């Protein structure tokens, strides 16, 4: 999963060439940065397990739609864990990324908030605590003490941070509250782990679990939600700080106007989203508070 170095070289060369040509042209554009891309270079967008990132056909259509809308080649980059996408962002292998709110706060220095998806008309979501539907003995987090528990990802808010914060608020140590915990590296697989009985409980993104109820009801409905967390800001789209202002605006405009076109609406419907909003830092105050509680920020 290490970034491939040979692939990066042409980019660096091109970047140098672009810088040189831009300087020679002395256009003096404000947006001129190290990643000048006014000439129409490829934009790389990181996709994380923050949503149902294995719907490849849907994502292909979205990529084509995005490329057509931006008049730019677009590459979607998929990684199996949040950590890997974060690393790619840090290494500037990505221009944009759809990441979870928790990594966003980790990467605050490297990225800028681009847009926040609207889920059920609002830029919020929650963490769900789920158990097997036929398992009626579990009614709250306290009942799951000493059980096997499935987390989504160590950099997931709803799949890791929020449930641990909840346990902590209940007066327990999240590290020893469960007999055993493991990561599934995807929210969908948390649902699967709980549905199959591998874990007695799991923490999952409310957006993904609710979407699964529509997309894969036979899987999702084998689980039951026993606790809902407070609302947190929805996983945002971010851009690397090095992305040219023009590209930033271009992408932001594309996302914000997506709901205005028929194709865009159709894609949003299939993503179970309503559109995008600009959003702001205050949406993520709840996550920041939890991180502070664990001494992470």
């Amino acid at each position, binding site marked *: 999963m290490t970034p491939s170095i040979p692939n990066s070289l042409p980019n660096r060369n091109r970047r140098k060439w672009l810088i040189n040509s831009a300087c020679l042209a002395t256009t003096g554009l404000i947006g001129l940065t190290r990643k000048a891309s006014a000439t129409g270079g490829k934009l790389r967008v990181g996709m994380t397990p923050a949503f149902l990132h294995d719907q490849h056909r849907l994502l292909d259509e979205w990529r084509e739609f995005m490329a057509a809308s931006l008049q730019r080649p677009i590459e979607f980059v998929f990684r199996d864990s949040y950590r890997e996408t974060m690393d790619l962002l840090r290494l500037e292998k990505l221009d944009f990324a759809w990441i979870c709110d928790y990594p966003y706060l980790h990467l605050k220095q490297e990225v800028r908030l681009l847009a926040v998806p609207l889920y059920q008309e609002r830029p919020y979501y929650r963490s769900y605590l789920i158990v097997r539907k036929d398992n009626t003995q579990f009614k709250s987090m306290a009942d799951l003490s000493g059980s*096997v528990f*499935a987390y989504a990802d160590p950099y997931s808010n709803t799949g890791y941070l929020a449930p641990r914060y909840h346990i902590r608020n209940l007066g327990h140590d999240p590290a020893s509250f469960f*007999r*055993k915990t*493991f*990561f*599934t*590296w995807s929210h969908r*697989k948390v649902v699967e*782990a709980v549905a*199959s*009985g*591998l*874990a007695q409980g799991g923490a999952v993104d409310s957006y993904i679990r609710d979407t699964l109820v529509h997309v894969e009801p036979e899987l999702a409905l084998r689980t039951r939600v026993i606790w809902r967390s407070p609302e947190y800001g929805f996983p945002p789209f971010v851009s690397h700080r090095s992305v040219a202002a023009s590209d930033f605006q271009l992408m932001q405009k594309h996302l914000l106007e997506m709901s205005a076109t028929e194709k865009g609406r159709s894609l949003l419907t299939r993503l179970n989203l309503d559109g995008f909003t600009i959003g702001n830092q205050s949406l993520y105050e709840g996550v920041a508070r939890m991180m502070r509680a664990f001494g992470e920020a």
Partner: protein
Amino acid sequence: MRWLFNLSFRRKIPLWTSFLISLSIFVVGAALMTRAYEDMKRAVVISASNLGHTLANTVAPALLHDDVWRAFEIVRSPIGGEPAQTPVQVDAVVVLARDHTVFVSSDPDTLPTLAEPPALGVDWVRLSTRLGAESNWPLVLEPDDSDYLYLALPIIDRDAQLGHLVLRYSKSVFHPWFIDSLWHGVEIGLLVLAVLIPINWYWGRRMATPLVDLAQRMGTILETVPAPLPPDLYPYEDELGQLFQAYDRMALALRDKAALENEMVKSERLAAIGQLTAGIAHEINNPLAGLITVVDTLKLQRDLDPRTLRQLELIDRGLMQIRDTVAALLVQTRVQARPLNQHDLEDVHTLIQTQVSKRRVRLEWSAAMPAELPAPASLVRQILINLLLNAVQAAAEGGRVSLWLGRKDGAESSLSMVVRNDGTLLGDEQLAHLFEPFASTRAGGHGLGLWVTYQIVTQLEGRISARNIDGQVEFLVNLPLGEMPCSTASA
């Protein structure tokens, strides 16, 4: 049980062979099925250990990093959505940690993570005990009272043992599969039987039918003279065929014996009759000669009145008739030894010509002989005249009579005479008594012609026989030739 062995071959052969075919199919089938069951178990173990090695290697990093989900995805991969349908399909895959608790299993419902062996049942306790002591991998465990077969392998990363991988196979799948195979076997067996049994019945009957036929013939051999076997009854050269040939030879010998006995009885009877008649004739001849002399003497007396004379002549004629009859009965073959020559035959031809013309019979004459033959001419003439006149009388009006005379098949030592006529064929009763005196059925005959002929032939040590052949009556005489007979045999 004995009745089974008493059955006819017609049933016994097909029954026995059918039984043996069925038994062979059953035994071979059972052996194959047992073998198939063992093979299947071996196939399960081989397939399990291949799968086990692959899974153990793949799952090692996940176990090393305590990645339950990755391990779960790995152990779940060989499990189909449906319950196992074939014996080689694994029922459950379990990764046991070092302490033999479940790290992960493909079926978390019954084999949950962190479960300890006692919680999983007695099989797992046994397995756990064996795992600690085992050094010969893979470990195959098949408890008799269990529905499962287990195969275990260690999970090793470099030289560190991280835990064990256990594959569980459902034996309950073995049995339906085995039963299924068994039914297939039975179906094929029945199919083979359906083909073989009719062939076997056909072959058995084919062999038994001639045998049964032979047995029936043998059963009646004492009561009747056996008829020859139909040639197509069993036209092969095997032991059965040899038996039939032997039977045929025996039947032929029996027929010949019967004919010979018949002939002997006939000759003896005729000889007895000959002796009797000769005796009577002598007894009559002596007083007869006296009577004739007396009558002759009386007739010479002068003073006889005509009435007495007439009566004397009446007595004389009667006595003459008696003498003639007795003379005919007393066949005399005492002759001069003149050999037979061509003229004798010509004489015979001439002598019978009157009768031939009268009856408008066509006479076919075929006499091939040298100028002279060492046979008594007068006796041969008498035989020929008797037989030919008989034939002419017996032939239909305008019918046909034939004579063949010569040496049959070039036999130098005998003379054959064959006389045939196309008249009414002889009945069995007639044939039996043909050569007896007064046996004639023909009006006008005194019934002594054939008797005389028979006596002559017999006294010449020849043979005479009569038969119906090709719609004709045939008399065949064979006379031995040789030194000019000078026998003076008389009855």
